[in-house]
């Protein structure tokens, strides 16, 4: 199975049609960032003409919670910043901003990722589900969310949406997780108030999916 990194890494760094990392750096160093949309630059690489977007904003389309969302984003903007700043989906929280704490966890093609460490442009073409997806269309709480409420698995609540999404991914993977699986699969998320005891109870005693 490929890791998330492998999936989003350029597949074609050395191939004829791609832009090498060195070319990309050369291109980016000559432009000045502006918030305006800048059309793609056409460069010749290894004998072929290719379109290169950025720096500067570019049109981006994301498939989020079953909807097609469009925005003009700079290539350096993360999926998390796109969700929060452009689409007002603020359930995923910005805490560490470098893949350490899990507060921004969303599902990408069903697997949990740190939205702070996926570039929005790279998230195009993937199915993104945020915590808001679980109660879409005014649906009641998902059984995992209900279990968090029932077992007081939250205090300030800032880490909670990330935990809920990670827990959803956990039960998608292991419908009846063992305590060891719960610990392992949720160890990528941190809580400062100390709600782990409640989360363990919630995962151990939840009813339904």
């Amino acid at each position, binding site marked *: 199975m490929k890791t998330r990194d492998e999936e989003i890494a350029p597949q074609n760094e050395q191939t004829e049609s791609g832009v090498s990392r060195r070319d990309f750096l050369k291109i980016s160093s000559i432009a000045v*960032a*502006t*918030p305006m949309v800048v059309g793609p630059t056409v460069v010749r690489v290894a004998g072929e003409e290719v379109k290169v977007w950025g720096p500067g904003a570019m049109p981006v389309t994301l498939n989020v919670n079953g909807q097609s969302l469009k925005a003009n984003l*700079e290539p*350096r*903007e993360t999926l998390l*910043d796109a969700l*929060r*700043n452009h689409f*007002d989906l*603020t*359930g*995923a*929280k*910005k*805490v*560490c*901003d*470098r893949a*350490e*704490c899990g*507060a921004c966890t969303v599902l990408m093609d069903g697997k949990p990722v740190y939205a702070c460490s996926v570039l929005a442009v790279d998230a195009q073409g993937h199915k993104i589900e*945020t*915590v*808001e997806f*679980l*109660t879409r269309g005014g649906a009641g*709480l998902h059984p995992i*969310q*209900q279990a*968090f*409420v*029932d077992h*007081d698995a*939250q*205090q*300030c*609540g*800032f*880490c*909670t*949406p990330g935990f*809920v999404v990670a827990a959803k991914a956990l039960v998608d993977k292991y419908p009846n997780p063992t305590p060891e699986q*719960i*610990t*392992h699969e*949720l*160890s990528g*998320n*941190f*809580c*400062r*108030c*100390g*709600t*782990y*005891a*409640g*989360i*363990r109870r919630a995962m151990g005693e939840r009813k339904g999916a």
Partner: protein
Amino acid sequence: MAEFKWPELQQRSVIGARLKRVDGPDKVAGHAKYSLDQNPKGLLYGTMVRSPYAHCKVTKIDISAAQQMPGVKAVKVIQKEGTEIHWAGDEIVGIAAVSECVAEDAVRAVKVEYSPLPHLVLDAPEPKPNDVAEDTGPLSEDDIWDALSNQVPANQLIPRIKSDGITFKPEESHLKEFKEEGAPDALVEAIRNAPQHLDVKPKPKSPYKRAGEKVQGDPETAFKEAEVVSEGYYGVPVITHCCLEPHGAVMSWAPNGKVEARISTQNVSGMAGQLAGPLGIPATDIHQHQDHVGGGFGSKFSPDRWAVVAAELSKMAGGAPVKMFNDRRSELEVAGARPSAYAKVRIAAKKDGTITGWESNSWGTGGPGGGGAPPLPYVFDIPHQRKQHIAVATNIGPARAWRAPNHPQAAVLTMCPIDDAAAKLGMDPYDVFLKNIDYTGPRAKIYRDEFAKADELMGWKKNWHPRGDKTPGPVKRGLGLSIHTWGGRGHASDCDLTVHPDGAVELKMGTQDLGTGTRTSILAVAADTLGLTIHDINLLIGDSNYPVSGGSGGSTTIGGVSSSTRRAAVQAINQIYEKAAPALNAKPEELSAKDGKIFVTSAPDRSLSWKDACAKLGAMPITTRGRNPDKEHPPDLTNSGVGGVQMADVSVDTETGIVRVNKMVAVQDCGLVVSLTQAESQCLGALIMGITYALYEEKVMDPISGRMLNGNMEHYRLAGIGDIGELVVHMMTGPGYDERGVIGLGEPPVISPGACISNAVANAIGVRVPQIPITPDRVLAALAKGGA
């Protein structure tokens, strides 16, 4: 008629029950909006240019290139050329731009030149006697500027100015500048009227300041006559708050002069008053609102420079809202830290375990302001004592109150030495603690009860072994214990409770819910008093337009908000009894409220539904004001002073140095428990926070660069779900506890884990690891010096 006192156990319907927190569904759904989540129309993104040096002077600032960048809407110099900077990460220039990307680029376009100065960021080495400044003496103008820019509290500075005086003539223009820098009026007055010592020359600066030596009884004789003397070195480093929602605000300053504030705060009612001075507008023109806050732990009482600068940038940008929050590195570097404490301690004891004498030489830092001494010896008022503290002024960023200020440090510096004394006596520390428990004063009985309960839950007496686990193999297991205390009397709190003729109930209070369950607890009290459920009442908190309620710090919230709510609800229900009594053919004092009914206490069949009873109010709703404190509506409903006993069971791998917590037990009292599940959650969370600072947390500073080395969440490590072991919490309730009234709970259970875990590690490996956090390198170093 309902009385103001808390209802007896058998009459409580909601108070003390197990409740699901009312804001739980919003939080799990991701719908709960925090200040960081506010995205008002036309939002600008704020950021800061920060000092890369821990100590320096700003020599040149050029913002012109940044100002001309497309998308940059406002640039403001915060600390002008010539200002001395005392910690890395301090804010020099504020920027507001149309996107985070543009704001980041603008930071790079600002050119600031600095002249670096020598810095001190290491506080652990014991100060040498020659380093310590001799006397305090009169303050120069520079001293006062330093104190202001270092955020030394006015209540520390004013007595010093009054007693020691100043070395300069305070001109009115200077006093005005002090005021503009944020000096409160009382401080300005103190400077104006201070004794002037114009002939005194400024003394050479030293980062080390000695607090007065304190002596009680006759420590000399106590140590001379001691049968056993135990001594050791113990340390607790600076740690940070690491709130998951960083400090910051969304501010807009409209052209009509009104300011909308969305500050992430523990102190909703206090924001407008604190902003008025720095913004130069009346507090009544400032409106603060906050529904949820992502952690504070003592660090979010002030609007801080982040909110002030965001407001000023908004004004410069024509009133567009500006979002200004710390990024993670800045949050860990500048947004508050818990002071360190280190001590060399000696204890004198008799062979039967009676402790007779205490001697401590302690030091520690609270950042540039130095910092106060931890309360030593902690909890145990040992009859003969001598203690001395040195405050170390460092360039690590300012200290802020951290959950139970000074107590966790004092617990390590006291409970670990007592545990070492027990080991030297060859006694079980359980017995030594109890032998001396009367030194704890009025709460000795509570501690005795809690020790017995903790023993039962941990199996202490069954499983304890003398220091050094003798079982074969590299993994050693041990038990440790500690006790603590805290005040926790309720703060001032007002609320308005409105009952409408249709039966709808609304309660407004300018408080905040830090995740402690404040909303749920307020509703529990109101529902219990009105005979309703918590879902029948619309609770509105978090807004400066509501009646003023205190900041949430020092475990003062639950006592304050439960008391004011009780008083408002009792007054309301009594008015309803008055109106309903004729319909029930009874006197108001014969009525009760329960299960959504108003009924005759002696004949529950004679009843009105809540709705029908409220209809008797007529056309207009009633509003009652609840207050705390309130001498006109006795009795006092809140109290002060709790105990608490904790025990830890740990395993230590003597080959890798890794410590694992197997189990922790917390036995805690807090008077009358309002909302049991949330009270237990406070204790569970405190144990986890305690495991974190006992084993992982430390603000690691680089002596060369003066910067924090672990300003991220990979290396500033919090405990994860796999690090906590089994946690057992027992709340002491019932007779002897409930009648004390409501007492705060946030601080007490977080005090003991450090000492408790350190003692368990010593019990396991047979040697003290002197400093927390007990990291593998420290375990291996302690073992190398000699142990199991």
